[in-house]
């Protein structure tokens, strides 16, 4: 067991964990932040995407101990404390960007990283950026629309599914 400390959604946390504890498991089991989903456990699907020091990473592919001293942001930090959704979350709701919701936390965290880098992405840029996020339900159209809408762009010309 080794002690690890980091900041998760602005809150300092500290715990003793076995060395091989993955960040995804640390968030879900130790901190009970179960919004971070684990779909594949092999860095393929993107359901587990969180931010470490402002960069999107797959939390199934990184040890908690690798995040010593880091700032971690998860889907639980997106809505305001009173429950008001973030602009990206609200756009996913408005544009029906989710069905079962399993991929959604990772999609939202990836979208957030994209918009931080590129505040007005084109449809092609959004699709390319989301190549590491797999959705088995929506066919992606509405996810792309939601992200364009969240960035303040007009989506009336993009077909909905």
């Amino acid at each position, binding site marked *: 067991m080794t002690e690890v400390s980091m900041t998760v959604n602005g809150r300092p946390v500290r715990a003793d964990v076995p060395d091989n504890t993955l960040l995804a498991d640390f968030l879900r089991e130790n901190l009970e932040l179960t919004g971070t989903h684990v779909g594949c456990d*092999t*860095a393929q699907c993107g359901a587990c995407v969180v931010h470490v020091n402002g*960069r*999107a990473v797959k939390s199934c592919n*990184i040890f908690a101990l690798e995040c*010593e001293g880091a700032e971690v942001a998860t889907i639980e930090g997106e809505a305001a404390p009173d429950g008001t959704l973030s602009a990206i979350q609200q756009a996913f709701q408005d544009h029906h960007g989710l069905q079962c919701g399993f991929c959604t936390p990772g999609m939202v965290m990836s979208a957030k990283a994209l918009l931080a880098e590129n505040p007005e992405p084109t449809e092609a840029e959004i699709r390319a950026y989301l190549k590491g996020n797999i959705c088995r339900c929506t066919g992606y159209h509405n996810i792309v629309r939601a992200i364009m809408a969240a960035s303040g762009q007009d989506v009336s010309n993009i077909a909905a599914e």
Partner: protein
Amino acid sequence: MSYHRPQDLASAYHLLAERAPRLLAGGTDVYASSEGPGRPDGAELLDITAIRALHGICPSPQGWRIGAATTWAEVAGADLPPALDALKQAAREIGSPQIQNRATVAGNLCNASPAADGVPPLLVLDAMVETGSLRRARMIPLRKFVTGPRTTALRTDEMVIAVHVPASAGKGASAFEKIGARRHMVISIAMAAARMVTRQGQITEAAISVGACSPVARRLTAFEKMLKGTAATRIADLRPHLEQELAECLSPIDDLRADAAYRAHVAGALVLRCLARAASGATSQPESEGEGP
């Protein structure tokens, strides 16, 4: 499993010599190659990413030093001349943005997959691999560093500390092309890189490499020589010579991603595409000698 995260190189060298741990950089190959999903095996892991000296890309009069912990995202975002475009293009093709945020250039070379996308661009850039250990420091040309599928020239107490691109390879323009079973997030069926320097439309220097079609990615030295002195617009006329060298020096395999005949066919097409793009980059430079670091 026990996990070490030294803050400086000296501690890393001591751990390497005393405990023979497995090195961990971005972990994107280490995790994938482990027994049991997500959980790296190996009794000891040595994480090198907290060592500051291993981070970042440093230009100098000798060229560019890419620290061993530099990620593909950092390469993609770096201010580098057109001669290094092939490396930047490969950076954007490695997995997805979340992988590029973690995966390192050095990890890609050390993993020594025949399909490692970083190898062909670094071969046309005449890259050198700098290694360190308690006992010795070495500079190994990349073409001698990767010795076979999953094997490198590294000794057990050594690690890579940087990848160097010499200033002499900073001339001209370069391009990278890969093909997989779909557009994104794929292991390459074949890939190629080319770098070219031109003067008044004539090729004065050419470097070409092909990956995933032989145990280790290869330079096409005979075709490179033949291109010297040729007009950049006439490259396609020499295709039979290209096909001949590909047939002689590649040994593509049949596997679940593609059969050998398909690999051999696309390798030629990818090389020609890279050459065409490198040529247009090189000839559009005001002074095709390019910029220094």
